[in-house]
């Protein structure tokens, strides 16, 4: 039972970080109809900047700010100069463009990291918090709190603010929103900027303890945001959050009960997000909360 609670706590805190990642991914899809395969690259750019600034003795909050700004700026630049010019072609073409961006950014960051493992120099270190019978790393608690706060802020902004309403209008019906005077280009740019910033924050907690640190393989952890978004439904904000939690829990439980799942082979937990995704897609082809496509003839 203790082990189960332990894994549950680990899963929820990891899932919250995945939710943050998936949120940015879904916001971009809703606002600009682009499946951004460069999302892991945004995370890597953010995390790498934070780690480098940390190494040169910049205070942690400032380093995070730097990483968030750079990742957000990257998102903006990619949107303005690479995605917007070809936005009128098919979804698939634009997505392939983001794959090109991803290769470019990841290759450069992998080259810079080399064989090192960069520590993110966070203030939590490897300390743990004891909650009842359960030990949770402080970094994970911080991750959970940050995610909840950021997601809450985002939801409030999305529901209440003028820009949030404009973004929902574009997501709902882009041509009509344009006729009502909503500047769609600005909305797209805003979504990409937001996604970059959120990805950088997620990058902090994906590389902090208990993970060894930032290494090229971190990008494949960040890829788990894709199944998270798909499980929830690509065009559902709430779905992204649920999807993130599902993926985090599934991964954590599969890792904790590895010996009982030994018939599935070693290291199955890393495949777990994808296995859950395929199962969900078999039942619901557009994810749990995704809009079902209706064809009216």
């Amino acid at each position, binding site marked *: 039972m203790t082990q189960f609670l332990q894994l549950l706590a680990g899963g929820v805190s990891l899932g919250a970080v995945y939710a943050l990642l998936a949120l940015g991914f879904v916001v971009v899809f809703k606002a600009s109809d682009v499946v951004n395969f460069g999302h892991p690259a945004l995370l890597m750019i953010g995390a790498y900047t934070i780690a480098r600034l940390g190494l040169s003795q910049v205070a942690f909050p400032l380093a995070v700010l730097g990483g968030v700004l750079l990742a957000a700026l990257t998102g903006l630049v990619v949107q303005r100069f690479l995605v917007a010019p070809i*936005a*009128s072609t*098919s979804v698939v073409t634009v997505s392939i463009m983001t794959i*090109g961006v991803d290769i470019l950014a990841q290759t450069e960051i992998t080259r810079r990291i080399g064989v090192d493992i960069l520590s993110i120099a966070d203030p939590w270190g490897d300390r743990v918090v004891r909650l009842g019978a359960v030990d949770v790393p402080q970094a994970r608690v911080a991750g959970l709190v940050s995610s909840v706060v950021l997601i809450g802020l985002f939801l409030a902004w999305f529901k209440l603010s003028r820009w949030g309403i404009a973004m929902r209008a574009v997501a709902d019906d882009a041509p009509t929103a*344009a006729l009502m005077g909503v500047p769609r280009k600005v909305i797209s740019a805003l979504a990409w900027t937001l996604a970059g910033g959120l990805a950088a924050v997620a990058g902090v907690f994906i590389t902090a303890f208990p993970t060894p640190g930032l290494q090229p393989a971190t990008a494949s952890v960040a890829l788990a945001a*894709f199944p998270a978004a*798909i499980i929830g439904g690509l065009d559902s904000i709430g779905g992204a959050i649920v999807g993130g939690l599902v993926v985090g829990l599934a991964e954590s439980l599969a890792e904790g009960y590895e010996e009982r799942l030994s018939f599935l082979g070693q290291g199955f937990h890393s495949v777990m997000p994808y296995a859950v995704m*395929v199962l969900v*897609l078999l039942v619901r*082809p557009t994810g749990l909360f995704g809009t079902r496509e209706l064809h009216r003839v």
Partner: protein
Amino acid sequence: MSKVDVAVPVTTVPVSPRRTRSLALPAVATAVVVLAAVPFYLDRFWLTLGLFAFAAAVAAIGLGLLLGQAGQLSLGHAFFVAVGAYGYTYLAGTSRTVGVSHQGGLGLPPLIALVLAVLLAGLAGLLFSPVAARLRGIYLGIASLALVFAGQHILANAPLVTGGYNGRTVPPLTIGGFGFDDGAPGTQLLVLGVPFHREERLWYLGLAVTALAYLYHRNLVRGRPGIALRAVRDSELMAGMMGVPVTRYKGYAFLVSSMYAGLGGVLLALAFGRIVPVTFDYAMSIEFLVMVVLGGLGSAAGAIVGAFFVASLPRLLDRYADVLPGLAEPGGDGVSPAVAARFGYAIALILLLLIEPGGAAGLGRRVANRFRRNR
């Protein structure tokens, strides 16, 4: 007010085989003749380069069919390539113990193993098609990521088939007593005074298989299936109303594409001579995608050109690392050839999408049209 952005469903460049036929066929025939002469003039480095390019080309044609004709994005192509490569190796290989690891094998005749490996890849595609056929292109793109990661997991956990992390040797192909290897020790096959080793022999195999793959694709695209697939790509709803069984055709495209990947996988295994599981990862899937897009969606010739470019670039840069500025020998300072190659094709991809979304085939069509007009 500024121009209203309305998402216009512009799809890939329409392929009109009939209009370009007069130029395409002589060009392909010339290419085949030139490529057939290569083993007599170029050394082993170029032949090896070609073997990998042929293997990549066959698999890329399959992905091009799926993406360009059926409009389905797949990031799981490397998985089917792995099924082909390991299927062949397991079926044709023999059971033996290397060091501490035991490797299984059925010891079938290599030609039968090749055919079965391709069918096996098709079967894998068929198993995934309940997912593939029901998803729209972009959902499939992400769902197919599952294949790559599941594939890596399976390969790492099945040392009996894969030989584990250290990989295993690929048995050479023999057809009717003719071996695609260096031949029995002491014997030498001379053709017009040129000794034919493993590379020369495999070169012709690669060329023949690629040519057949091209022809098959051409026929498929021009026939009823091709028309049906393009209808599905352009509008599933419309295709359904015209009586095209949409789900079945999407599954069919996935099946054919995975068999192409399997065939490419067998060629790749033969070219490597020894295969390790990490080769068939996410990055490989992405490379196939880059090949297809660089070449031009919907064009088999384009896919072949793209495959030659992407597969050859790292090896070329590696070979000429000492004369190219900014490139480093392995272990030295500067950009390694593999990294430079990745930069190279990523930049090519981005520029091409910005300038000529039709890819190399689109550029070719432009040149051809201008040529016609001037005449």
